[in-house]
């Protein structure tokens, strides 16, 4: 462990298992294009639970580590659907997905309003006017009811991915 204090974040007021996750529409970005999509539609189409992954902005090591890990763990093949949310613009996201050979799609939410509604927004010190999501994972049923949730409580903090896969129902 490092010999200084990792920053603790205030407790997040996020949807818990059994709650209904908020629905939203945002541009969903792939490595080829972006278009408005609605979470509830995507979840209802998915073959299995939808896992919603919040990360800090593209360019942060936190975001990169999360997506690298999920790619390396083949979550694209192991979950019904994995969808990201971050504040970056579609241009930044599409470039990132391409550069990292990342098979996921990510919602672009520059105002961070989606993270606000999920209770996982994080105001950055000395980045005035800029708020981003803290890392968070939600496993959602097709009707958006929450099966499982993990939200970072420290800055930085990453989940124990093996535990998380169990909680989220991944084999």
């Amino acid at each position, binding site marked *: 462990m490092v010999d200084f204090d990792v920053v603790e974040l205030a407790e997040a007021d996020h949807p818990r298992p059994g709650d209904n996750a908020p629905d939203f529409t945002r*541009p969903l970005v792939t490595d*080829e*294009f*972006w*278009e*408005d999509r609605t979470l509830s*539609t995507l979840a209802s189409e998915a073959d299995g639970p939808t896992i919603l992954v919040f990360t800090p902005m593209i360019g942060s090591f936190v975001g990169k580590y999360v997506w690298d890990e999920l790619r390396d763990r083949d979550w694209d093949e192991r979950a019904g659907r994995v969808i990201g949310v971050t504040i970056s613009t*579609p241009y930044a996201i599409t470039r990132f997905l391409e550069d990292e050979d990342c098979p996921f799609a990510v919602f672009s939410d520059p105002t961070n309003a989606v993270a606000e509604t999920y209770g996982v927004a994080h105001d950055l010190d000395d980045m005035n006017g800029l708020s981003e999501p803290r890392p968070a994972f939600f496993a959602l049923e097709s009707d958006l009811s929450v099966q499982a949730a993990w939200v970072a409580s420290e800055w930085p903090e990453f989940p124990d991915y093996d535990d998380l896969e169990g909680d989220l129902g991944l084999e």
Partner: protein
Amino acid sequence: MNASTGRGDGRGGDDRTDPPITFYRLQACPYCERVTRTLQELDLEYRSRFVEPLHSKRDVVKRVAGVRTVPVIVDEDTGVTMAESANIVDYLESTYGDGTETSVGEQPAAADRDASGGDT
């Protein structure tokens, strides 16, 4: 979405309510905006897919339409996939219009209409 007409999907087999017209476009591309205006004036339901400026980043457009220029529309109701704004505007007006030219059709441009390379 700019949905308003609720035109039927016409394609059985899934229960999605996707609009029949998919519109591949680029931000601030005048040719694309011209198609946008036509779609809106004809009150057509469509979904926009934004792509990047670099032609080399437009594999999806190439795959769908065989070209890397935008705009491109795919109309699932008619099976039509079409590039080039002048052609698209003509197609939309003749397919969905009431026979009168919309104001969009008043765009200058004999040259533009003839210019196969005119789009972005």
